[in-house]
């Protein structure tokens, strides 16, 4: 068994920032990650980091834009924390040497992004995430922070009290990818989940193949509620063949969208008469699909994004990476012709419910970054707000886990005073196929643990995970995970996409149920203990199934149109009934649905919901 004060799971932007913060606070911290840190998906972020750095801008404006962008489903204390803290965090990155793009006077450059009232998106060409990831990894090396790389975390070691808020997380169970060894990791002070996105729930996504939502699924099964899962962001400009992202920076710099007839449809058809291409991402994604559905798409699939008029010099200076992506993955020379683009899954606004200190309702369990829902993005994330979230909440989780007093959080977690139960009609039973059996095999909560000490909890979790792996390996002629995964991904893309309607959502639940039943027979053909990716993908597939179901349940229950969540049957935002967060708790294999109100009270003001117009 390994032991550290703080264990960070995942080594993307949030994980690295959390580890640096915990160490600054004096903790003995280690990172456990299924990828080497420089391979993390934060490296693929292109556009930039929002921070109010300049005269004429203010954190209050950043907070307001974010609340409006969220379609009033963000929690004000978290949003204000984001807006207030991101300037110092961005400057901190500069002080760590990050290669930001520069203005003539040598200061860092900023550019306009969708939904922002000020050009506050700080950037490094169209490779901001790459520069950020490497800059933070350099700091990790400098500080000598321990990294267990290519260790896949299989499970959390959480005690088994009845109510999740009485439970404690004592550590994690890791699987050494290279050797196949399974080891417990005890965390004296806390575990921080920073496992990133879950884009692999869909088959057309900008997310890496590794983005299987492991942290969200693990926390969910350990009893931590997951929040606002129905809000999946579809990015309007992804390459049709692969899902590779074309940064919003292209539109920020003045890129134009055209339909097949060469019409600038954002204006021509009135989708966003004020902001055109720079309307918020949900608005542009729907506009593109409407064009395609109306027969004005190209090859009935995509639209054109044109940046030729920006000129070679400006493109090379600010968007060079886009030229490479268009050429390598679509065979298009974007200096000479427009790029084909269509909406693709990009970001999960929802995730593990946390407060503004990154804490979940389970004692000692934290989450930060895309896997978490501190509730800063609400129902739609603004471009350029994911990277500040990583560093702001990564840092806070790190400091807090290591013992720094950040003051009491205003966002509440777990079932506190103001929760209300929810109900939804489903065509098939959601949750585990055989709840009792599964609780032993793969749920995180320890069994009969009331008399155990911390180390024993980790040992028990390690034994349980070992048994689980053995049973998967024993079934070497079972169903192949790849097939099951593909079925879920296709169903989600067909039924739970940009446009949603009741029958399709119900069909998705049936498909997911079928996948779950198929998964009962899943087995691992590769019998090797050395670098067994067959085994790991089998484990990831289970996470994909649980999260696909959570997204669909949320989408089915939310009978309104808000942000990224568009419902055929409900074409209005319904503030009277739906100014609240959707939560799901996994109770011994059975998903329980409940709600809690949105917090619109900020530090000095109350954010009044207004119609979003762009």
């Amino acid at each position, binding site marked *: 068994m390994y032991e550290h004060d703080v264990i960070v799971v995942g080594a993307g932007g949030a994980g690295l920032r959390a580890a640096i913060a915990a160490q600054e606070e004096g903790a003995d911290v280690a990172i456990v990650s299924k990828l080497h840190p420089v391979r993390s*998906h934060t490296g693929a972020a292109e556009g930039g980091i929002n921070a109010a750095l300049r005269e004429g801008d203010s954190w209050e404006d950043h907070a307001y834009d974010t609340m409006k962008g969220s379609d009033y489903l963000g929690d004000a204390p978290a949003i204000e924390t984001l807006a207030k803290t991101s300037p*110092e965090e961005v400057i901190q990155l500069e002080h760590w040497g990050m290669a930001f793009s520069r203005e003539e006077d040598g200061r860092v450059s900023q550019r306009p992004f969708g939904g922002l009232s000020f050009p506050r998106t700080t950037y490094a060409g169209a490779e901001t995430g790459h520069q950020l990831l490497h800059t933070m990894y350099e700091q990790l090396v400098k500080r000598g922070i321990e990294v267990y790389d290519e260790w896949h975390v299989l499970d959390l070691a959480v005690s088994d009290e009845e109510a999740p808020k009485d439970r404690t997380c004592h550590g994690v169970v890791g699987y050494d990818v290279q050797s196949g060894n399974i080891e417990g990791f005890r965390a004296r002070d806390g575990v921080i989940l920073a496992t990133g996105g879950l884009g692999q729930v869909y088959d057309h996504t900008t997310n890496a193949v590794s983005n299987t939502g492991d942290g969200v699924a693990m926390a969910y099964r350990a009893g931590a509620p997951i929040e606002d899962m129905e809000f999946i962001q579809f990015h309007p400009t992804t390459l049709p063949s692969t899902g590779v992202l074309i940064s919003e920076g292209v539109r920020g710099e003045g890129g134009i969208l055209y339909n097949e007839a060469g019409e600038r449809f954002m204006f021509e058809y009135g989708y966003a008469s004020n902001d055109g291409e720079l309307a918020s991402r949900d608005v542009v994604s729907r506009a593109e699909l409407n064009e395609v559905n109306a027969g004005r798409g190209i090859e009935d699939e995509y639209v054109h994004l044109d940046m030729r008029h920006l000129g070679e010099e400006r493109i090379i200076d600010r968007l060079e990476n886009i030229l490479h992506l268009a050429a390598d993955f679509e065979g298009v020379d974007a200096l000479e012709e427009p790029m084909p683009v269509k909406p693709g899954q990009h970001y999960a606004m929802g995730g593990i419910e946390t407060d503004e200190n990154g804490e979940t309702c389970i004692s000692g369990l934290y989450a930060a970054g895309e896997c978490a829902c501190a509730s800063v993005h609400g129902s739609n994330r603004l471009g350029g707000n994911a990277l500040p979230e990583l560093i702001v909440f990564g840092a806070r989780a790190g400091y807090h886990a290591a013992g720094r007093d950040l003051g009491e959080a205003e966002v509440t977690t777990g079932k506190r005073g103001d929760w209300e139960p929810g109900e*939804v009609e489903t065509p098939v039973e959601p949750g585990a196929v055989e709840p009792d059996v599964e609780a032993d095999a793969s749920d995180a909560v320890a069994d009969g643990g009331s008399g155990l000490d911390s180390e024993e909890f980790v040992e028990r979790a390690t034994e349980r995970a070992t048994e689980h792996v053995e049973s998967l390996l024993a079934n070497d002629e079972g169903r192949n995970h790849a097939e099951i995964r593909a079925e879920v991904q296709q169903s989600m893309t067909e039924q739970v996409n940009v446009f949603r309607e009741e029958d399709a959502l119900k069909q998705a639940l049936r498909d997911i149920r079928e996948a779950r039943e198929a998964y009962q027979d899943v087995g691992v053909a590769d019998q090797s203990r050395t670098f067994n990716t067959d085994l790991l993908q089998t484990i990831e597939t289970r996470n994909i199934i649980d999260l696909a179901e959570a997204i669909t349940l949320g989408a089915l229950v939310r009978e309104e149109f808000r942000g990224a969540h568009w419902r055929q049957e409900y074409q209005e935002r319904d503030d009277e009934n739906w100014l609240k967060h959707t939560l799901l708790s996994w109770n011994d294999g059975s998903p329980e649905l409940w709600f809690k109100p949105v917090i619109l009270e900020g530090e000095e003001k109350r954010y009044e919901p207004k119609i979003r117009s762009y």
Partner: protein
Amino acid sequence: MSTQVSDQTDDESSASEAETAPAAQQRRMEKKRQRAAEAAEKRQADEAEAALADEETYHLKVFRYDPEIEGKKEPRFDDFHVPYHKGMTVLDALMYARDTYDSSLTFRHSCRQAICGSDAMFVNGSQRLCCKTQLSDLEEPVRVEPLPHAEVVKDLVVDLEHFYDQMEAVEPYFQTNDLPEGELEEQRQSRENREKVKMSTRCIWCGACMSSCNIAAGDNEYLGPAAINKAYRFTMDEREGEDMKQQRLEILEQEHGVWRCQTQFSCTTVCPKDIPLTEHIQELKREAVKSNLKFW
């Protein structure tokens, strides 16, 4: 119970509730056998179909090795015939082969957009990122092997520890004594200076350059092109200041540093991010000479 089940359309799931555990077990075993048979049939059919329709498939010869599994301990090449679609990359083909024909086929990959650097392999005799290599640019059969000059862990996966150690041997982090006053003030950097270091910051640690370098192959202590490029990134950054530059040049001038480079340009040739590695190494040699000549 917060969820309600409406119209039960799936009679299998309602049956399962009434069944006893052994019956359910039996049913699962039955299903499993049936599926295994179906899958085997499908695999054979797919292979046969792919092999028949020759103009629509690509022939891959893929290196295989697993130290643990009897029958795979001897390195060998496996043939895969993968149905081709326009735009298909080597990575797409490997994933198809793995997901359809042999789930034990092992390789690293993640972002599939040339930024995570994890799928560098030796394809038709050259180090390349599989995700940005179009099959249509390659001659058949496409030979896919692990990166040369590194220990093979399994199939196409190599041990990168040595590569990481070299990357971390050059103090690969920004060091400056010149931070501006005031919390929210950044250090100024000229556009020209950012432009100068820009290419060097694009390294994604894929290891292709190190694998292609003859000198690194013969001298295990040679820092290698990637690590030297990492040092270049900081040495040339004006924000670090002169003292730090001297310190960095000392690291680079050591016996297994820049002077080992024999300007064969193989690193530059294979770099998937077009970093002018050889030029950067030569520039550092010049800086080192200049700094040594300074007091003469």
